[in-house]
């Protein structure tokens, strides 16, 4: 059969790389073929998720933050400082976390989706027109965030003026000065050229952009055992591949940025500098507990326990 797989990024970005690997594996180990649909070609992020729910698409990659409109608990990934800040621990965390591997799948299943895997896409960094060393430097800075109450709350707590803006307008708005900052993983800052219109990159370690691959549940349940194994194995191979691929991707992207724009400063905040940012996480947690659905508390607690567990390893 022909299986269709849509994602939120371009073919050569992280989600696209994962999808390409998945396609390669499936096609090598079965008679099925996989068609890939990069961002925008079948509609916006929400649209491709709905198409997967109704069975037009078999596979979809949507970041849990966006899925939050459907599964409120998934917004937990927007709570700052909940994920390990160091890359190696992070991969283990995704493989071992009870919240991710046991608590989320039933929530997705209720929406007709089989959660196949979640994986990190890279540390979220701020790019700004003025240097940032602490919350005081964000005071009155109009900072573009995605339309999500938790991100808005986060940046408000950081002291900035969170400004929602459609993605297509961000580049122009940074150029003309409507906004003075935005956040994204390094590869995305590089590929979308955000560095051309900002001057400083700040690594506060507050988050790692997480994404999830899902299948239409009815389709997945209806697969023969053999086919299901092909899918599961392809996901596993692609997961290992993407963790490997990202090892160094952040540094590589930052190097490319430096090369294209030598004047760009890249600052990694120290533990002490991060502390005031970390202190604001409480207010965001409160907001999450309010809007995060029935299992918000349980998921938050479990994620914290999971974090504890991998950190002590």
């Amino acid at each position, binding site marked *: 059969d022909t299986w269709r797989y849509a994602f939120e990024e371009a073919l050569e970005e992280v989600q696209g790389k994962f999808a390409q690997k998945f396609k390669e594996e499936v096609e090598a180990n079965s008679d099925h073929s996989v068609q890939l649909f990069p961002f925008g070609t079948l509609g916006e992020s*929400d649209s491709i998720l*709905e198409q997967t*729910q*109704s069975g037009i698409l078999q596979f979809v990659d949507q970041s849990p933050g966006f899925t*939050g*409109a*459907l599964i*409120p608990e998934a917004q937990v990934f927007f709570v700052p400082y909940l994920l390990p800040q160091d890359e190696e621990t992070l991969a283990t965390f995704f493989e071992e976390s009870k919240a991710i591997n046991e608590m989320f799948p039933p929530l997705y299943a209720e*929406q007709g989706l089989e959660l196949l895997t979640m994986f990190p896409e890279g540390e979220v960094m701020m790019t700004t027109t003025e240097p940032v060393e602490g919350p005081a430097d964000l005071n*009155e800075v*109009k900072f573009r965030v995605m*339309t*999500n*109450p938790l991100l*808005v709350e986060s940046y408000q707590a950081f002291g900035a*003026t*969170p*400004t*929602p803006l*459609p993605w297509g307008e961000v580049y122009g708005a940074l150029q003309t000065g409507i906004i003075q900052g935005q956040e994204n993983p390094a590869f995305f800052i590089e590929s979308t050229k955000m560095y051309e219109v900002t001057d400083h990159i700040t690594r506060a370690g507050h988050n790692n952009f997480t994404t999830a691959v899902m299948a239409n549940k009815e389709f997945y349940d209806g697969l023969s055992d053999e086919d299901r194994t092909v899918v599961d194995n392809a996901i596993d191979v692609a997961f290992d591949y993407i963790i490997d691929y990202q090892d160094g991707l952040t540094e590589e992207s930052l190097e490319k940025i430096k090369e294209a724009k030598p004047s760009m400063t890249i600052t990694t905040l120290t533990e002490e500098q991060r502390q005031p940012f970390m202190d604001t996480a409480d207010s965001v947690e409160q907001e999450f507990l309010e*809007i995060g659905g029935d299992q918000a508390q349980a998921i938050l607690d479990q994620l914290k326990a999971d974090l504890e567990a991998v950190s002590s390893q």
Partner: protein
Amino acid sequence: MRSEQQDHEKVDPDVLARAQAPALDEDDIDDSKYVSGLPGVLGVVDVAIARIEAILLAVGVLAMAVNTMANVVGRFMLGQSLFFSEEVNRALIILITFAGISYAARHGRHIRMSAFFDIMPPPMRKLLMIVIALVTAAAMFLLTWYSVDYVLAQASRGRLLPALQVPVWWIIVWAPLGFFLTGLQYALTAIKNMIHKDIWLSTSTLEGYDDTPAEEV
């Protein structure tokens, strides 16, 4: 060659008059003069719906301007963006579009290419107008059906607008309504063409009333 050029220099006075017409005149639709295609009580209801559509259009556009500006004011004066303002605009554009397609159908304002239509002999035009109205009505009713489907699916999935935290189906419920009322207008137009003389672009618009240019062909 020479005469053709002189022809070009002359401005069609009609075109000029229409283009220059300032403010409210024939270009604006006077809702108080609207006559429904439906008889009796249904007609009264229909006229009321037409009025509501008109009001929704006007209020929707004004609200959009105010909402967009409020966001700017919030950002500069209060240091706080209205992060739901984008979603309010989404809701308004859907409302305007679907109130408007029905209103446009009432007044024969949908965009069409009439060049070949216009050169046909009148009996053919009448027949074609009936076919067009029926097919369009059918398409609208079909979309009504599947947009109800879509609204119900959204309602059952419980998708929320991220900033406003209200169900998405609240803002798209205008789609089935708009498609249905538009379909109804085209169906009535077909009937009007069957039982009345002349060729009707909509239940209230006679062909040639607004824009059939002399120079086309």
